[in-house]
């Protein structure tokens, strides 16, 4: 039975026949339900669930734009309304570590994003197109991940990874907000709880958090990237290794080689016989003008006019030069 003849779901919802896609759809929906509950409970307002509505649409429509939009709207919604109005002088940062509401909200958000992206990979596009935009052939579709190859334990692994990431995020936030950098001390890190009210607020706190996060990112990312870089170097193929050596040698000797090869190429081009110049066509062989032929009076008027305008411009230029440069 063809897709068009299927009674349910309709052709544009045919992706729902894939059990793996359905699984990720339902898990994503459940995650969003949890997120909506947390947002409503936290703000006491049904409007707080607006990001979740957007995300539900993203799941059903399989739009690749919606996850980003959801993150932006959720970040906006996470800040309480009095804070937007500037009517509060208190901060909840000192109490923001390992709060159950945050743990659940962040976990549900991560779970939704993971489900949404996997659903996109299964039903819409698993990897970017190979050819550049101008060179794609008509009918070329980016490959999708076949649902039949998805192992059953994948969802469980996804939840485990998400749980680890939520905990890591909490720990990093704890370190970034509770520790303060002070390079005047022997040990440049010291405990300094963040201010709970504007009266005790230290203006250096944002900079301190930024430096802490930048340092943590560098500490984690750089060694990992270096390890992978070194691993890649150890596994270079003969062709790649040859190309690396060639490129390095070329960059070192480029200036000298460049000069030699330019001179050589110029010499070759001079030695090459030049094509014979084509003889000028005889008057009867010249192409006829494409437009209508002007009358003698028109041509005379045009020539005289051009001569007059040109002479006028030259006269003005001479006058200006004499006026400004001829002063004693």
């Amino acid at each position: 039975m063809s897709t068009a003849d299927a009674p349910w779901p309709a052709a544009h919802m045919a992706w729902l026949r894939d059990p793996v896609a359905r699984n990720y759809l339902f898990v994503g929906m459940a995650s969003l339900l949890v997120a909506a509950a947390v947002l409503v409970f936290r703000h006491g307002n049904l409007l707080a669930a607006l990001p979740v509505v957007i995300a539900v649409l993203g799941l059903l429509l399989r739009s690749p734009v919606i996850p980003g939009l959801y993150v932006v709207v959720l970040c906006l919604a996470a800040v309480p309304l009095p804070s937007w109005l500037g009517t509060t002088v208190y901060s909840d940062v000192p109490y923001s570590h390992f709060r159950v509401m945050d743990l659940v909200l962040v976990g549900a958000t991560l779970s939704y994003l993971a489900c949404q992206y996997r659903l996109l990979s299964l039903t819409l596009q698993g990897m970017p197109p190979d050819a550049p935009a101008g060179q794609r052939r008509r009918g070329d579709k980016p490959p999708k991940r076949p649902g039949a190859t998805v192992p059953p334990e994948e969802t469980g692994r996804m939840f485990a990874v998400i749980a680890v990431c939520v905990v890591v995020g909490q720990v990093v936030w704890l370190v970034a907000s509770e520790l303060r950098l002070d390079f005047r001390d022997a040990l440049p890190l010291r405990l300094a709880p963040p201010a709970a009210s504007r009266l005790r607020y230290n203006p250096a706190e944002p900079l301190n958090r930024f430096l802490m996060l930048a340092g943590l990112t560098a500490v984690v990312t750089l060694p990992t990237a270096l390890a992978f870089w070194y691993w890649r170097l150890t596994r270079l193929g003969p062709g790649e290794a040859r190309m690396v050596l060639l490129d390095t040698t070329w960059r070192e000797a480029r200036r000298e080689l460049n000069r030699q090869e330019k001179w050589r190429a110029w010499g070759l081009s001079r030695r090459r016989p030049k094509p014979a110049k084509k003889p000028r066509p005889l008057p009867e062989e010249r192409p006829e003008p494409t437009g209508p032929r002007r009358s003698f009076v028109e041509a005379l008027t045009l020539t005289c006019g051009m001569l007059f305008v040109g002479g006028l411009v030259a006269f003005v230029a001479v006058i200006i030069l004499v006026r400004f440069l001829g002063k004693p």
Partner: protein
Amino acid sequence: MLTPRGWWLLSLSALATLIGATWAAWWSGTVPLLGLSLLAWLLVEWVVFAYRFRASADRLRVDRVLLQGGRTVPAVWAGGTFTVRVTVTLCGTARLPFVHLADRPPPDLAPVDGSHAAAFDLRPGEPVVIEYQLRAESPGVVRFEGVQVRVADVAGLFYRRLFVRQPVEFLVLPPLTNDQGKHRGTKRFNTLPPPGVHRLRRPGSGNELLDLRDYQPGDPPKMIAWKPSAKRDTLITKEIENEVPVRSVIFLDASNGARVGPPGRAPVVRAAEVAAALAQAAGANRDLVGLTVFDETTADVTAPARTRTHVIQLLRKLGEAAARLPDPGHTDPDLLARYAHPVAQQLYPDLTAREVNSLPFGLYWLPIADSRWLWLVLALFCFPMVLIRPEAIEFVARAANTFSGPDWDWLARIVLVLAIVLFFPALAGLIWFLHGVRGLLPPRSVRTARRKQLAALYAALDASGPGAVERHLYDDESFADRTTRFLLDHRVRLPLVLHDEDGRYRFRSERKVQVLANAIVRSVARARDNELYVILADLTELADELRPLVQAAQVARARHHQVLVLLPWPADVPPPPDRRAGKRVRDGSMKSLRIGNLVKSVLVSRYHRAYAELRTVLAKAGATVVRVEDGDPVRLVLDRLDRIRGTRVRR
């Protein structure tokens, strides 16, 4: 490595973390927590993906077999479908959950059934199979470059591409013809002569009785026919028929001009098909067949033989000849680079990556010293030297006085004087900057990057060192030659320009006539008996340069050999009008006189004239000229072989 999806998520996460940690954290810690958790998730996904890729992606083993008729074959037959089976095995240690494998089929062949690409979950030691069917319409070569591997994570956030190169070529042999339909239909003798020989009604050392005659002293006693001798009471001697081989040599034109044509319909392909049918039909008649494949420079000679192995060898040579692509003779490096760069990026992604094939900033800058603008820049720089003349100093002073206000202090006046004095050097600097910066702007920068990457790739493939990179960058001729070779090696067809600016045909290949003539003379020198020379060559455009060939044909005719010229006719040219038909039938398309039709009709009539002239010239030398499309050329050749035998009979 990050996909656009991944870049968006990373940017939003980093932004949420940054804003959350610096601004929004005064009110709420949720925003930075969300950003940090997202970053942690991305980091974990990246580490897992990078580990899997490094541990496994470059440890793929590809095995390829071709199946035809249900069994594995080293070469396939033209005119039939065959199956390509590619088995990919992961020899690494980590699983790749989402891999897209795409075999690169030969560009000339269209898939008949199945798909050459599929997505898999690759696990170590568990092979996956891609199977699809292709159809080869004409003899030649099918080249498989390898398998393209695209790896992504399950969420589509990270992506890598590589190509497992495994270049392999399989011959497409000309189709096996039906022997019953090709060899001589009338059976003239009841007894079958030994393979490769034919009966000749002259006394010799064969097996069949030819005649009886009177005994002459010196005749061997064993040849005495005792019964007739007893009847006639005089000694009678038996005469036995002679047995002679009839050999034919096929000369196949594989020159550049004969390779021009649509894929699978070029003259050399058609000629190879006819030659294959000839070889098989003559082999079925137990005749000896030789082959000489010639082009503008060389002639590859295969001596006549008649074994089954020899026929297969001939088919291989014909397949190789039919596989040759025309050298387009392009000299425009940019045009060639536009074709070669995508091929290089697809087949050599590891050697064209910027990490190993770098594009430094200085590569794009256009030095003023390479241009004639240098002289202008130098002149402008040196222009302040005119201040050694008092008149120039006076001019500068007057100009400064004119442009300065009455209330200007001395510092402003000095600045004005310096501005006037340094105006021309500044102008020179501007020219230098504008000249150099042009190299950084597209499309010049794109051309430079493309050419440098290709130059480095060629240098790496040829192991020719960094000097070759610069040579390919600045020597257009060298770059064009190497790029053409690169494209032809990978069997990429380039657009052909058939006529030059003066309207002359660019693929005449005049030198092949001399090579062909030398090959014929060589065959005549090595001939034993009367032979048939079948020339399958595209000679129509060379009707006025056939003198060496005419002389060679005359030599062959003087030695009682036969020369038959079979012309592969272009597919888009109608057959010449039959003179015996009398009145010419007007084509309906001539009614609509358009420039395309007019040019086509002129070219066709010119081709017909050249064909008529060719027939006349070669007929004077005793050679017969026939179009391949006229009737059955194989039967014609076989009849001509019989005529050679007949000539011997009459002699």
